């Protein structure tokens, strides 16, 4: 077959195409073969089956005990303790962290220095040590007084009354979290284009508005993923508080298996609850990220709900011949692979944006 003549007949063909070309208009397309992928899939499937099998058949997991204790009142109480610690510590951590980050970026050398010193100290000292220190604060300062610095005091408390187990745990977790959060927030702010700072300043926006309305919302895009990572770390970090005998999940579980010797099932109970908390946080993360992606993407990614609805809708229409869901994005559901291709492509242009 002569390529030259083909090029003459179809001038749209690119020069340098394969020498022999099919003559039909729409040639049959055969996908590339991936034998390695198949082997890997089979290996992983077998391994998965082995794990599942052992979970079911090994009686020592004692699933009945796990179910029994999963919603045990004191376990739920411990779960509540863990959630409470996490929430308050995250609040203190990110509140103080944002202040520290803004201090670090301020023009005052003293504020910068103090912020740096704080991060240095609280990142360096192990959490467990900090917790015990806070718990023993009453040894250093038996009284806490409010008043004018170096002047008269108005009111005072016994340190032991203010800093109980919960107080010490909150201080330890929150203050050390603040050191890490400060760096996360600072990185987020530094990541915002200098032109945004300039535009906000050139418009004469008050400094607080510049930060709150212009800089921080954009910084959130980089802050949120790392921040959720930190909060998940914090959820698990609360288990360290068992050294104060505060009744959070891990401590409670320990107390129970100390009594009934069912160590593994109770550890599984705690593990399941930590999994649940992390899952919920991950879902929240998705929606928060989606919120702050406003304007950064040309089209927001579909929510898991939307995806599930579309998937079911397409499957349903294939089985019954019913019409496809009306809000289906173009290209979705024609063939799964093709659809994935389309989605990847759109996503790429979304990120690229227009120059």
């Amino acid at each position, binding site marked *: 077959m002569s390529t030259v003549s083909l090029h003459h007949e179809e001038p749209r063909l690119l020069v340098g195409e394969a020498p022999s070309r099919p003559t039909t208009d729409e040639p049959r397309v055969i996908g590339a073969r991936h034998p390695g992928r198949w082997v890997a899939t089979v290996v992983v499937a077998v391994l998965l089956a082995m794990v599942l099998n052992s979970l079911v058949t090994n009686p020592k997991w004692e699933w009945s005990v796990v179910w029994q204790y999963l919603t045990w009142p004191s376990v739920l109480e411990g779960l509540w303790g863990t959630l409470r610690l996490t929430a308050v510590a995250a609040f203190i951590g990110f509140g103080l962290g944002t202040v520290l980050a803004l201090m670090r970026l301020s023009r005052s050398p003293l504020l910068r220095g103090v912020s740096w010193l704080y991060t240095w100290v609280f990142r360096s000292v192990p959490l467990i040590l900090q917790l015990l220190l806070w718990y023993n604060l009453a040894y250093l300062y038996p009284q806490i007084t409010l008043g004018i610095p170096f002047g008269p005091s108005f009111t005072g408390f016994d340190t032991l009354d203010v800093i109980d187990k919960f107080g010490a745990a909150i201080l330890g977790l929150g203050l050390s979290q603040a050191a890490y959060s400060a760096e996360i927030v600072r990185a987020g702010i530094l990541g915002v284009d200098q032109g945004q700072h300039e*535009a906000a300043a050139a*418009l*004469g926006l008050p*400094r607080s508005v510049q930060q709150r309305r212009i800089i921080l919302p*954009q910084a959130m895009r980089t802050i949120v993923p790392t921040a959720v990572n930190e909060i998940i770390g914090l959820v698990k970090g609360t288990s360290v508080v068992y050294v104060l005998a505060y009744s959070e999940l891990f401590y409670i579980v320990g107390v129970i298996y100390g009594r009934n010797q069912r160590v593994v099932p109770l550890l599984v109970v705690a593990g399941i609850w930590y999994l649940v908390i992390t899952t919920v946080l991950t879902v929240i993360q998705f929606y928060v990220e989606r919120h702050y992606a406003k*304007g*950064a993407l040309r089209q927001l990614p579909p929510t898991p709900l939307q995806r599930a609805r579309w998937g079911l809708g397409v499957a349903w229409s294939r089985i019954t011949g019913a019409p496809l869901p009306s809000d289906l994005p173009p290209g979705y559901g024609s063939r799964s692979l093709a659809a994935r291709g389309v989605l990847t492509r759109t996503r790429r242009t979304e990120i690229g944006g227009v120059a």
Partner: protein
Amino acid sequence: MSAGLVEVRGVHKAYGTLEVLDGIDLVVKPGEVTVILGPSGSGKSTLLRAINHLEKVDRGFIEVDGELIGYRTRSDGALQELKEKEILRQRTRIGFVFQNFNLFPHLTALENVVEAPVSAQGRPRAEVEAEARELLERVGLGDKIDAYPRQLSGGQQQRVAIARALAVKPSVVLFDEPTSALDPELVGEVLDVIRDLAATGTTLVVVTHEIGFAREVATTVVFMDGGRIVEQGSPAQVLDDPQQERTRAFLDKVL
């Protein structure tokens, strides 16, 4: 509009040993359009940024409508730098349009325009929004009010940026190479908006490489090189009959 007098007196600015502005004297009369030309690194942008105090100058001073920018004169004659709050207030009288638009990407076109009048000037939101719609209409984007910057073309983004700069009702608008980041076919739509603006009598100072635009719209053309003003005058004088060798050499290259 009678406001919009810009006076630049003996301004010097150096980055380390590099004299970016080396004694600039310039007066822009109310309602005039001044176009600043010059090679890269000649100090055009720095001068523009100095006018709204985005850059601090080392010597000399700048006044807009007789008000010193960034400083006040003390009774002993010394210049006292203003607090940031004061400087921010002064900036609301000076619009600035950036080469890279610098729209806020997380706000819609309308929100971009509304932000400064509401939070910097404390004007009622409803009134500002109505004005902002009008402004966006005026720059030909009445149908893009709720679009995010990234959903707009470069030319459209720059037009939103111009509307944003106008929303605070400035007496002077400064343009820092407003069309340099645009595809050639989008340059026209932005220049059209600036041309319309010039016709309304707002004082404009435009740094640009668009010689044709300068010839057509400018009241005064200023040619800068090496941090100095080499030559200034009407477009006919500077562009068609330059007296200085540097100006001639530059125009030969760009025309």
